[in-house]
């Protein structure tokens, strides 16, 4: 990242500060981020601001991105793994308008990746930051709706509720039925929501070289996983964690490793499976085309 307080870019929408937020707000958010990095997986309350996008559409991620963004950064925004979904396009355009930064669809070229619901298939590097949009930062929220009580449970590291919930799945269904937003223990201390990424992506968080930042705007919480931190998906010895993906190969690039979207092709039950990570899929297709040409 470049120094975030560098002078304003030119050619962006008039009348707004670089990256939309004023410098005092960005400083406040950076302080929350520093705290979050210091206590991996712990939710730090912060004074989330109203953003010109609706709550629940990525306001937390956008505020985190706005606070760490410098004029020389290259931003990639994905939604459901894809660069070309409407929300990803809209957020990318927002930062083009208010910060004038370069954007990319390539995971390898990006310095900051803002994401909703996926971690790119390509492994991230030390010089990259991934910013997650988080709808509900509290992993215990469905088990205990009261914030005052969940804060107590975190303080006591009392995560029995979640173990019981997973155990009940096994007792009723034979295995854990949590398919996304699968809870993780970070650095052996805090139970954390990985945001609604599929459980398939959870292992990518473990000892990731890139800094992982999580922003929840409506719930006004920031949390983080520093590089190379231990992230373990909750499970039991006799029922180990199992990432789920559709057991197919991508219809476009043939990958059997990546997470797949199911695409209905007609109304008679026809369907194909394609990579949800559009950049990964595109790179593989290009490589295959090049190999075929040679």
């Amino acid at each position, binding site marked *: 990242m470049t120094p975030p307080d560098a002078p304003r870019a030119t050619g962006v929408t008039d009348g*707004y500060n670089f990256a939309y*937020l*004023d410098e005092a707000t960005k400083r406040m958010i950076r302080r929350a981020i520093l705290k979050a990095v210091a206590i991996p997986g712990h939710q730090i*309350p912060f*004074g*989330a*601001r*109203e*953003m*010109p*996008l*609706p*709550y*629940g*559409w990525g*306001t937390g991620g956008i505020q985190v991105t706005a606070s760490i963004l410098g004029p020389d950064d290259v931003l990639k925004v994905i*939604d*459901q*793994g894809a660069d*070309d*979904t*409407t*929300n990803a*396009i*809209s957020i990318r355009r927002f930062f083009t308008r208010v910060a004038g930064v370069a954007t990319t669809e390539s995971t390898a070229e990006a310095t900051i990746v803002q994401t*909703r*619901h996926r971690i790119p298939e390509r492994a991230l590097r030390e010089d990259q930051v991934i910013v997650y949009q988080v*709808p509900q930062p509290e992993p215990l929220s*469905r088990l205990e709706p*009261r*914030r*005052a009580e969940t804060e107590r449970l975190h303080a006591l590291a009392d995560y029995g509720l979640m173990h019981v919930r997973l155990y009940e*799945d096994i007792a*009723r*269904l*034979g*295995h854990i*039925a949590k*398919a*996304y*937003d699968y809870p993780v223990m970070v650095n052996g201390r805090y139970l954390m929501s990985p945001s*609604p*990424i*599929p459980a*398939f992506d959870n292992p990518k968080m473990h000892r990731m070289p890139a800094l992982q930042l999580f922003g929840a705007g*409506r719930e*006004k*919480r920031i949390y983080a996983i520093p590089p190379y931190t231990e992230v373990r998906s909750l499970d039991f010895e006799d029922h180990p964690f199992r990432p*789920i993906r*559709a057991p197919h190969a991508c219809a*476009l690039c043939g990958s059997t490793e990546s*997470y*797949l*979207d*199911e*695409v209905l*092709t*007609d109304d008679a039950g026809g369907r*194909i499976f394609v990579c*949800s990570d559009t950049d990964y899929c595109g790179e593989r297709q290009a490589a295959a085309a090049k190999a075929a040409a040679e």
Partner: protein
Amino acid sequence: MYVAVKGGGRAISAAHAWLDETRRGDPSLPELTVAQIEQQMGLAVDRVMAEGSCHDRFLAALAIKQAKGDLIEAAFLLRAYRTTLVRFGASEPVETSAMRLRRRISATYKDLPGGQVLGPTFDYTHRLLDFALAAEGVERDAAPQAGTPVAAVPRVTEMLAREGLMQREPLDDTEPGDLTRQPLAFPAARPVRLQNLARGDEGFLLALGYSTQRGYGSNHPFVGEIRVGHVGVEFTPPELGFAIDIGEVAITECQMVNQFKGSRTEPAQFTRGYGLVFGHGERRAMGMALVDRALRAQELGEDITAPAQDAEFVLYHSDNIEATGFVEHLKLPHYVDFQSELENLRTIRRSAVAAGAAPGAVTEGAAQTASAEAAE
């Protein structure tokens, strides 16, 4: 082969162009001016100012025009603008007893110093459609003028308090919390609760206030006083060290008088529910005052049994900008999480069949799990 539709960028641009066209409507009709909205849809402007928590009639009217009259969308536009403004300080508390009154009514006294002032109100109008309004350009008669403007009048609750019948609110000079700067935390102090309610959704406040009247956390209320008018706003610039008048804002204040049976340490007396909102918004100020009083249940040693008394429930759900964004985010794609649920369901069905159970038996429970968690 079918490939997922691309070109979201062009679709967005086209959709927004269409929105702009429908906003304008039939181009053969004259375009609404912002000034017309500000003048003739004043109560909508007031509501948007309150929920947008920004006192600026012009901007609120502009937002209403841009939002095609969708008031929550307009409040959202105003809040998103407000967030970019530099906050250079806080005003002195406004002195509502010195309000330049347009309206002041009390339901607890027939007559009182200062009198009842009806002001511009829908109360006592018959809700019959006025077809004369459909004819444009008709001159309306000017309203009759009172002889002398209403002077500053004392507050009803203050008269009760002097008799010892109304609980005094303790004076507190600590800096109140500010929800636009700090996140909500519990237990939430009353200034924070009041700030939350002041910009809360009018419909939500109305419904919760109504629920207290229907018995959910009942506490028989009287309207001690509603006053609508203008108050001066004073600000103390640090470099001056004394307060200067920086203008006036229109506000509505409601003080609800509620029963209180007393406790071991306090004699029986009335207690207050308080509502203060931007602009002319009586429904909103009354709802706020009812909910404020309900939220004081713990402090006053009352049983907490109803939604309106549950601070977490009320404060986390009162903000319509937050609520509308999150509810409407369900329109965003959810292919990834839905796909993981699909595979999960299929796995469960396969293992159920393998175990010899009827395919429908186990999957019902799994379907419930799936649907309960589908909303993210």
